[in-house]
């Protein structure tokens, strides 16, 4: 009988104990699987968000946290100059602000306002009505997200009164009336966020900022050039600006912003790995100790040391393998729950996920489980191979 079949029958013979081992591995494996999903999930998700609309290069006036960044002056002209580079397909200046709209309640609602230079490439998808246009008559048109449209009970063609909120306080400039051109979905929207996009003219009239300033310029490189060539070209053309490809943004984010989740996932993966190794080691060791006579007898009738060690290894592999397979759907289900908890963090875009599946997770998971199976089998295999045949048989029969 082959070692695998022999190990399988051994496990069946001790069904209850084997089931416990499998359940233990499934529980530990599910947690480990989740930690692997978490270990790079946010990075993958952020990457998808950054890549979502085809912009693969960001241009800023300075580094640092968003609150302390310098604005890009003459952004429209700068964007036009960047668009003229052969490596660049389009360059869109963005300005980010806040405004207040008066709803039914006593307190006005805060709205995140994205102002863009006139262009055809957007970071939103219009689902009702029309998009912003470049016509002079439409300068005060806006597109809003579903939540804002519902909140204001408004739709395409409706007018809204906006007051600027350019810092912690409302602007002293008078409110302006804007017209909703369309309703759109915004990928960076958080759960409860009210969002609006407009042309620069709206923010220019709402806030006391110099006209034509942008917070960043998003650039789409030409497919034949790629983002790295576009970054090089922009750096050469405008060395005073800070230019990053999405890869560089992600690399930076991984270095500073993401380390907490990477560390917690590493720590918990190690804990669950240790759980798995100790559990299976204990189960196999007790099993071997209870079968010393049987193992000695098998050795006496000609089973080699290697063969007996292989039996133990297969038992370990079967326990870990079956438990590990059961852990995958369990882990996926748990990850939905854990992801929902983390996504309730304020300001997290609704499309962002912390637990993200990617094929490499399966390979890594399989590798770690293989390590568990091997690690757990080492001590019981050592016991089996070192077992003195005659002494054990004598002791077993005498007892």
């Amino acid at each position, binding site marked *: 009988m082959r070692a695998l079949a022999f190990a399988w029958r051994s496990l069946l013979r001790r069904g209850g104990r084997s089931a416990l081992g499998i359940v233990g591995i499934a529980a*530990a494996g599910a947690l480990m699987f989740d930690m692997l999903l978490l270990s790079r999930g946010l990075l993958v998700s952020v990457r998808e968000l950054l890549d979502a609309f085809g912009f693969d290069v960001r241009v800023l006036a300075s580094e*640092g946290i968003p609150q*302390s960044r*310098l604005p890009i002056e003459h952004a429209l002209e700068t964007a036009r100059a960047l668009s003229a580079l052969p490596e660049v397909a389009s360059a869109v200046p963005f300005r980010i602000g806040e405004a207040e709209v008066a709803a039914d309640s006593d307190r006005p609602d805060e709205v995140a306002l994205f102002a863009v230079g006139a262009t055809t490439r957007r970071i939103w998808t219009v689902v009702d009505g029309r998009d912003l246009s470049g016509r002079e008559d439409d300068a005060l048109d806006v597109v809003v997200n579903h939540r804002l449209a519902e909140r204001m009970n408004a739709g395409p063609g409706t007018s809204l009164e906006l007051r600027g909120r350019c810092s912690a*306080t409302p602007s002293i400039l008078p409110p302006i009336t804007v017209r909703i051109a369309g309703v759109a979905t915004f990928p960076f929207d958080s759960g409860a966020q009210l969002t609006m996009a407009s042309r620069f003219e709206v923010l220019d009239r709402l806030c006391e900022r110099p006209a034509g300033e942008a917070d960043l310029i998003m650039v789409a490189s030409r497919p034949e050039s790629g983002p790295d060539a576009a970054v090089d070209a922009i750096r050469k053309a405008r060395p005073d600006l800070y230019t990053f490809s999405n890869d560089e943004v992600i690399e930076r984010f991984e270095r500073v912003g993401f380390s907490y989740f990477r560390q917690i996932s590493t720590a918990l993966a190690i804990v669950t790995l240790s759980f798995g190794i100790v559990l299976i080691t204990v189960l196999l060791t007790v099993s071997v100790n209870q079968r010393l006579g049987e193992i000695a007898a098998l050795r006496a009738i000609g089973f080699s040391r290697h063969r007996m060690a292989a039996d133990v290894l297969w038992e370990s592999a079967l326990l870990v393998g079956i438990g590990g397979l059961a852990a995958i759907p369990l882990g996926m289900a748990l990850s939905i729950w*854990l992801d929902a908890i983390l996504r309730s963090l*304020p300001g997290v875009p609704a499309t962002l996920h912390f637990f993200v599946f990617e094929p490499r997770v399966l390979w890594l998971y399989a590798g770690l489980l293989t390590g568990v199976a091997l690690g757990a089998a080492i001590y019981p295999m050592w016991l089996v191979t070192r077992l003195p045949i005659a002494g054990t048989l004598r002791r077993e029969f005498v007892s």
Partner: protein
Amino acid sequence: MVSAGASRVRSISRVLFVVGLIVGFGHALPSAITVNDTQPDPPAVLFSRQLLAARHLQVGDVVELSGDPSGANPQQFRIAGSYEPMPDPIRVTSERLEARLHLPDLLRLTGDPDNPQDDDSLSAISVKLRRPEDAEAFARDWSARVPAIGVRSSGGGETEHNPFEVLSRFHQAIASLTVITGAVFLLALMVLLADERRETIGTLRLIGLTRARVLAQVLLEGAIIAGAGAIFGVALAALTEGVFNAFFQWRYDTSLIFVRVTPSIAWRSIAVAIPLGMAASVLASWALVRSNTLTLVRR
């Protein structure tokens, strides 16, 4: 917190930015400059420990700061001391390159000479109430009285969207999953333990101990094993608390405390572990206790 003046917020952030720029890139200014003895002593400034270390500055050095993002119109300051920035979990991954100036110095540094109101403008006033529980009502009242300023309570609130509440819920979820995994592990050990003692239980039953008596013994054993394990776990956590904190404080260059084993956490761990241990031992021994006595002793 009472806030006013849009431009002031930008100015102050620009000051910090310029400090960051000077420190981060080192093009605008040398790290320390020599001051002529005949000049009046520059005003004092405090630099964060991180800023001092990043630019290899020391207390007593004279530096130039500018309120202009371009570094124009710099003013000299003498570093009077360094301070440890208030630990802030939200900014744990940010470099704390910060400086503290006297308010008149900051106003002079950031103010627009053409705007006389700049000398009398602030970005925020922190207010400490006699009755902190009135903070929300105070904020509402003052927002209504002076519409041009924003007044809000600085308390984070225990709402479900507070980031620390969310992270706490995530940690609790992870902890409960770890406990479940640990419980399965414990159950497996108890099953093995019970199996090993099959004959002992049979003998105890043969000499007259009732099932309830044997079960009580098993229950007590489970409680002792789980209690000992929990105490060991709490002691291990308390012992390694300092190691974890030291590592993460080094990693993030902060004085933030990451791990703290409080009495409440210790008691909660023990309170969860003991019932779990008892339940696992009863579950593991239930079949044996209910088995035929002769079967147990293999007769």
